[in-house]
């Protein structure tokens, strides 16, 4: 444990004390070896002088004299250079979908909207990332990249992330592929991409955009946030259902169409999951009715087993 942000003044809406206590027990670790300019807990493919000894190699011309292990010279009368594995930190890009559909909070007025839920989730992730010494970046966008908090591993950066999340409001239609392409342009090296969205868009386009990240070596995590009302339709007799991002509407009796609706939705979710699996992308469906850390726990448990 390096740093824990517990200052009362640092507490924001999406990062409560109770959440922080729970997050302290979590270990967020990326499985990939990532590049980084800053030391961290992630192994680097580059050997360098650092705390972790890796190997010896014979001295050759051009090596710095200060790198010679004089103790080994004393024992062997040969010049050896001591090698250390360089530890780098990881850049984690957290993308939050802020399209209008993310404003949906289901049939209960006091419940979290999907955007709020996503914000909680991302805030938690950002805290974990920064707490373990990595850098977290948060991007917001609906059909384009709206805002982006640059990657940083300091508590101040976490503060900026939380402020950005608080200011986020649902606007515009879902165009996640465009947003991902915009975000891709800002990344300079591979890292971890976490997308939190309802993904109510064309899966082909979404995964086409995600392919750019996977090809660059990103580890991609998808959290699909849906409400129970979306999964099962609201428990009302008859209603005129209006689409939140278009003028489409339909009059339906949920009890009459529920089965068919669930079949359609499950087909979509299955398509999402199978596409993710095919690209070695972690995919998890979360609902706003379950605490967001549950999703994190589930993810981390999967990562530990892997």
């Amino acid at each position, binding site marked *: 444990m390096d740093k824990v942000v517990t200052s009362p003044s640092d507490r924001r809406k999406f990062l409560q004390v109770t959440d922080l206590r729970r997050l302290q027990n979590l270990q967020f670790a990326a499985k990939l070896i990532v590049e980084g300019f800053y030391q961290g807990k992630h192994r680097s493919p580059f050997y360098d002088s650092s705390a972790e000894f890796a190997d010896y190699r014979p001295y050759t011309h051009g090596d710095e004299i200060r790198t010679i292990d004089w103790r080994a010279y004393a024992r062997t009368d040969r010049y050896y250079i001591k090698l250390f594995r360089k530890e780098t930190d990881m850049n984690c890009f957290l993308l939050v979908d802020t399209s209008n559909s993310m404003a949906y909070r289901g049939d209960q007025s006091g419940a979290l909207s999907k955007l709020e839920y996503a914000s909680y989730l991302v805030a938690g992730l950002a805290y974990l990332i920064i707490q373990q010494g990595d850098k977290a970046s948060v991007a917001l966008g609906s059909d384009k990249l709206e805002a982006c908090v640059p990657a940083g591993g300091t508590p101040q950066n976490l503060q900026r992330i939380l402020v950005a999340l608080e200011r986020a409001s649902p606007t515009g239609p879902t165009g996640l592929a465009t947003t991902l392409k915009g975000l891709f342009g800002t990344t300079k090296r591979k890292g971890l991409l976490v997308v939190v969205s309802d993904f109510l868009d064309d899966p082909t386009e979404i995964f086409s955009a995600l392919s750019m990240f996977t090809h660059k070596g990103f580890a991609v995590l998808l959290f699909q946030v849906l409400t129970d009302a979306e999964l099962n339709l609201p428990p009302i007799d008859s209603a005129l259902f209006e689409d939140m991002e278009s003028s*489409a509407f339909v009059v339906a009796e949920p009890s009459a169409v529920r089965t068919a609706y669930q079949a359609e939705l499950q087909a979509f979710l299955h398509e999402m999951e199978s596409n993710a699996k095919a690209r070695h992308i972690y995919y998890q469906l979360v609902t706003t009715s379950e605490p967001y850390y549950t999703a994190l726990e589930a993810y981390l448990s999967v990562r530990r087993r892997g």
Partner: protein
Amino acid sequence: MMTPLNPDLLPWLSAAGIPLAIHLLTRRTRVRAPLPTVRFLQRAIAHQSRLFRLRHLVLLLLRMFAIAALVLAFVKPTMNSRLGTTGAERTAVILVLDTSASMSYSAGGVSAFTSARNEAIKVLAGLKPGDEANIILCDSQPKALLTDPASDLGALESGLRSAQVSEERAEPVAAINLAVEQLAKAKSKTKRLYLFSDFQRTNWASVKFEAVPATTQILFVAANAGRTQNGGITAMHLYPTTPHVGEPILVECDVFNSTDGARHTPVTLTLSNGGRATQNLDMAPYSSATATFTFQFDTPEEVECTASLPSDNMPIDDSRRIIIDLRRMPTVVLITDEDANKAPNGAFFVARALRPDPNGQAGFRVIPVKPEDLNNPLLHAADVVIVCDAPQMPDLQYQALSRYATNGGNLLWFLYGANIGAQINSLGRQLPSAEPLPLQVDHVVNLSGNGKGYVTLTEARYESPLLKAFKDPAAADLSRIHFTRICTTSEVDPRAETLLKFDDGTAAAVRTGEGGGNLLLVNMSPDPGWSDLARQQAFLPLLHEFLKGLLAHELGAHEFLAGGMASATLQTGAGSPLAHVTCTGPDGNVNVTADPVTGSVVVDHTKRCGFYPIVADGRPAGDIAVNLSADETDLRTIDPRELESDRRRQNSYVAGTGAADVDVGDLGKGRPLWHYLLLAALLSLFAEQYVGQMKPRVRK
């Protein structure tokens, strides 16, 4: 169409709108709910079956229908009858019940008449108070039970129950005309004519319904539908028609097999003098055969002759009667304006030639009458009517003579006299158009002073029964007669039989059939101013052979049928006019009219078949045989639908008694529908439950 019996409840039908109102109100207050996943909802709905998507509408309709059906069940609607009526409107009904002899046909113990009468009683029973009705019994003289249609259904039913089948033929045209008259008297708007009959083809095939107003519903109720097995004697012929003692007499009995199979039957002829003979006949289906019996009598008597068959399902036509009167002289009615008792004139010579010995039993009995004195009893009594120098008569007389000839009489007309052309033309106008006069008389030509001054007979058709006696020239030489005045005529109709021709080619005697009788036009005159015919030896045999020949052609002119009038000519001696004449029929005494001068006795109406003995001054004076119309024997029926189609209109219906597919009692009844509606309401509620719980069937 339907008619409600509880129309006061009809406003409750508006309750059927309650589900609709609820439906509309529900639509108005429908929740507007945002949903990001509308596209999946749209797809889900699109993949549902049309029925499932429309189930709300179906439910709405089912609920509305259930309420409407429930209300209607209490409204008690009745489906209009096949007659298009509800049974609630006032109706005038005329029941024409066929009481002809064919209705007595009985198969299985129930006669067609009984079946028809029972159906008619049913119809009467189905009428409501206020309905008008009358019953017409259809025999040879149809008559209505009441003067006008009335609501006294009890009296009508009583009359109907007491109605009996007659031994007469049916006259459906007269019955229908009478029914139309009765319906015209009725005040009800809905008018209905029921015809209860066996619809014998012989009686009904020619019936037209033009007289029935198009708005009047006609119901044909067929009785005796099905296979009939009947045989009957349809005619008896006597040859010669006026037989004499000692000469062979031929009695022919025509038997008709009204069965669809071959028939073997014995025919028995029974005579009142004890004679009896039997002959077996084999008959093909629906065909006739003739049994022939020969007799010879030694004494001048009147013999009742009865032919009979073994009894079958219709006994009335199993026997037939004829009178063989050996005492009788044929009666000739001589219509003339001349004095037949004072010479010299044509009528005198004719009368004397017909009965040379006024006190003898040979020859003909001549009744000279003035044209204005001609009446129907005389014509009934006449075996032959001779017109000899008559003036121009009123059309009524020509009409009577025409009817006499077409009804089977024999009319001999001497073409002479001042107005002969006009007379013949007048007669021709009264004859049926299908059987016109065989020739037209142009004018009278006087041959005196022209050439030899006369014409003679040069051509004769000796093959004719009227001239066969002259085939031997030794019998009489017709060519010796000189005719100084004759009528020029038009060409003779080739369908007529030209018996004699003058040497100038003019027709001298032409015979033609007119209906059932004969018309013989003789272009010669016994008047001394016209010819020397009266002085010639051939005159008497020529006149006698003419009359014998005509009588031999007689086709039952004197056959009397039940339901009509009957007559006989009694042999009155000189100076013994008839007094106190009575006639006893099978049902007792009947009304008779006797002409003391001519001896003609007429029975106005003969209801029953049988012998009608006539008693004059306490002594048997004659006999009349009354038989059944031959039309009644042939039981082949005409399908009322043919009659219906002839009418070319819609409001006629066919029902039947028993075997037929439609019961006449049901035709006029409105059918209650409340139980169907109740059932429909329950079923629609069940259906509503089913549709309401219907699960969507998702199409992959």
